[in-house]
């Protein structure tokens, strides 16, 4: 059913740390790689080697500049499905393909039921859903449901592909219903925000804000000149060598 569960046993999701994300796009690529070989139809592209390459991706990194002048901060901003508690994409689905699981809160698409009407992508304010160009079904982040419960993988691999691959640990995975989990602790201890709270979607994923750099004054470092490196007069033994060699 496309009705939403009142509560879910666990609330699995991600904490994304905007302070440490460097925008390397590794999570984007690993997500694409895993989801082209795991659950459901492979994530397709159109014209991948042509003039206008396009395709479905479940995770994308935007880069924003926040603030003005010397206070401006560059924020790399990974965006994937937020697995909302009040997911508007689920209730609009006419076929029953979109579901929110009551056991762990993951929002999933049953690709064998999806008729590709695209209404769920319209209903999502975040743009978390993309139509697969070759399969004609809606694709979205599965929170790597085929990794996190996969006993064939070593334990450290049983996390979403984006989390596993992030070189700066900007992404954390866990259960928000468990107060002792890393994600709960992080979102409690750091300043965490919901995206577009005014849309009343109650997203599970939280974003940790970057450190504020406001007020830091920019000054030219003094007493240092690149030219000095080239023209510096030698001293000590080097000066003696320099002098002696010069006399020869």
């Amino acid at each position: 059913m496309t009705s939403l569960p009142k509560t879910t046993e666990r609330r699995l999701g991600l904490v994304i740390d905007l302070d440490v994300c460097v925008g390397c796009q590794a999570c984007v690529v690993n997500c694409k790689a895993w989801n082209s070989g795991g659950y459901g139809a492979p994530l397709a592209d159109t014209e991948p080697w042509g003039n206008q390459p396009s395709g479905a991706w479940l995770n994308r990194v935007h880069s924003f500049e926040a603030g003005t002048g010397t206070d401006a901060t560059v924020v790399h901003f990974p965006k994937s499905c937020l697995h909302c508690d009040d997911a508007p994409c689920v209730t609009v689905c006419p076929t029953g393909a979109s579901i929110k699981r009551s056991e762990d809160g993951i929002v999933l698409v049953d690709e064998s039921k999806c008729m590709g009407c695209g209404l769920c992508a319209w209903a999502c304010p975040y743009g978390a859903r993309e139509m697969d160009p070759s399969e004609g079904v809606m694709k979205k982040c599965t929170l790597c449901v085929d990794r996190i419960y996969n006993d064939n993988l070593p334990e450290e691999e049983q996390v979403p592909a984006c989390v596993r691959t992030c070189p700066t640990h900007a992404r954390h995975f866990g259960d928000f219903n468990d107060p002792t989990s890393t994600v709960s602790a992080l979102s409690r201890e750091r300043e965490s925000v919901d995206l577009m709270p005014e849309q009343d979607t109650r997203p599970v994923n939280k974003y940790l804000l970057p450190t504020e750099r406001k007020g830091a004054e920019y000054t030219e470092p003094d007493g240092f000149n690149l030219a000095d490196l080239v023209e510096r007069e030698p001293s000590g033994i080097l000066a003696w060598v320099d002098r002696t060699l010069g006399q020869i």
Partner: protein
Amino acid sequence: MHPALSIIFFSTLSGAGFGLVAVTSLTGQPDGSSVILAYPLFAPLFVGGTLASIGLLCSVAHLRRPDRAWRAFSQWRSSWLSREGIFAVAALLLLVPLAFANPIDSTLAIVLGLLASALSVLTVFATSMIYAQIRAVPAWRTALTPVLYLSFAASGGILAAAVLTSLFSLIAVTQGFYQPAARGQAFDGFAAVASMAIFIAWIVQSVWWIRLKRTGTGLSTIQSATGLERFGPTRLLEPPHTGSNYLTDEMGFVVGRRHASKLRILSLLCGGLLPLLLLLSTQISDLPISWQFVLSSLAFIFHLFGVGLSRWLFFAEARHTVSLYY
């Protein structure tokens, strides 16, 4: 939002079709006093049903996996799109017994007629709710959207009923069935009500447009979308991809907004003013019935075109919150 032609054809045609079905089922009660009883129910129901069915088929063309369209009847508890499908098919199925019951059993025909018209209204309402429920598109999320869809369905439906009345008068007169005076009254009645409905519909559309201007991009901003409110003005430095993608194709439509004001005037002229003038001209005294038919048909065609254009703008002018990320 990307204005998909299939969706525009669907909502315009099925709106007018279900409007006609509702009008016919309601007013065509075989109680003897009805002026419309002069023509058989079968034909208008057939025309209305055909218009609605063409519309529905257009909407199926919009699906990427139409082979699974049957599944859309399953989620009526939460999904307006599912409800729309159920109402539409139920209304269309009901037309068959209604058309045949009419001359045989008047009580049954009244019950079926009331049911069919209620289902037709519900179908149009459900169509409008598909859009009105989407919070991510602030332009659509208003009680005015159902009013708009229902108004245009009513104006198109009543206008179509006027056209059919004039057609049946024409046939009746040429066949010498009976005197044209009574027929003229039925047409005049429909033409008057259609004029009012068209007038009201464009008032609603104008109010809808005024609201759109006030709403703008809604509550969400780039700051709330990124959570970076505290850091001051935020702008996109690097997009996540160099080309287009499904999201930018589907929700980042900008062409429409560039010519929006011109297209609004054109839609108002074609869909409102011109049909009103044409309907007025049918009231010229001693105008032959054949001319009434031609003029009202033209009015219907122009009205449909104007409504289609306004429906195109309904999509093209609407902004989705995902555009805040681009």
